[in-house]
């Protein structure tokens, strides 16, 4: 199967602090990959490099066979872990911004996502709750017809009902032509949608593999393996 992401010997340092240490990782087309680790493990750094927001210190990162740049940004749809919309906007303005920026933005898909999330076009961004905000951001990101979706903590800090809706939206929008990378430390909620898992600890990959194979080998859920890897 074809790899959508190929990472070889990736290192990122912030002055003297090593955030990512010699990471090697391939992600196949059609896979949903969970990058798991506590805060400060390097998840967001890794994702920002893939999204083209940070440059690596050394190593090679290819998406769809190309180095990070204009092309890769055009095929990567990225959900940051914090809000990126202006307060004065209405949902409609946010949609237009996305439409202008991304030629792969699918307005019909966006409308479906909005109604699934029970959001309305004329709602003001300012007036949205945290959960609604997250649902809107995810709708914008999933409405693009991209090859790679990168979701940074998509269910962080939202209530359980919103969490379920977000997970449903992710599953409904899965297609075998694109891949997804999802970072999370809320493993229990996410584990049934992950094909592969990557455990990141202090900038190193300490464990990686197919989620089902790990469950089978260890006779444990990913959530329990997580506690084992990161617990004291």
């Amino acid at each position, binding site marked *: 199967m074809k790899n959508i992401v190929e990472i070889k010997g990736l290192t990122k340092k912030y002055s003297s602090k090593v955030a990512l240490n010699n990471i090697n990782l391939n992600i196949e087309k*059609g*896979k*949903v990959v969970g990058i798991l680790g506590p805060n400060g493990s390097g998840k967001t750094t890794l994702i920002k490099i893939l999204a083209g927001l940070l440059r690596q210190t050394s190593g090679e990162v290819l998406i769809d066979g190309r180095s990070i740049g204009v092309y890769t940004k055009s095929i990567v749809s990225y959900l940051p872990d914090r809000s990126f919309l202006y307060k004065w906007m209405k949902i409609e303005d946010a949609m237009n911004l996305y439409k202008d920026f991304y030629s792969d933005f699918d307005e019909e898909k966006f409308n479906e996502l909005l109604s699934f999330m029970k959001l309305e076009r004329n709602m003001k961004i300012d007036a949205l709750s945290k959960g609604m905000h997250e649902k809107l951001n995810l709708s914008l990101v999933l409405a693009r017809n991209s090859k790679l979706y990168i979701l940074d903590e998509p269910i962080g800090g939202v209530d359980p009902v919103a969490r*379920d809706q977000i*997970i*449903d939206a992710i*599953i*409904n929008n*899965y297609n*075998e032509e694109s891949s997804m990378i999802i970072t999370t430390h809320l493993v229990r909620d996410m*584990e*049934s*949608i*992950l*094909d592969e898992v990557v455990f990141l600890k202090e900038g190193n990959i300490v464990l990686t593999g197919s*989620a*089902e*194979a790990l*469950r*089978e080998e260890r*006779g*444990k*859920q990913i959530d*329990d393996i997580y506690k084992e890897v990161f617990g004291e």
Partner: protein
Amino acid sequence: MDFNDNLPIYMQIMNLIKSKMASGEISGGDKLPSVRELSKELKVNPNTIQRAYQELEREELVFTQRGMGTFATEDMEVIKSLKRKMARELVNRFFMEMKKLGFSIDEVKSIVFEWIEREDGE
């Protein structure tokens, strides 16, 4: 459905479908939900559902018709032997747990007979 068992999720889904076939909730020849439908319903990665269907097909419990979907086997013998196998597994588990609790075979026997008599009486 909660996948809190320590089995791989595809096996938990196989077991779910097997028990529906054994109980008759899914009867021979019935169409199973599509991979996508079941994935949405159970909130599980479609690739995992696909894997469960493939394994069920290998065990000849379901068959796929191109472009039509996946169907429960029409072979009643297969369903019968599935039921027997599931019953054996249940009994095994029951006896193992009873042994763990320190019951002798004779004690288990009398507990089971008592239970049957009570059920019959009702």
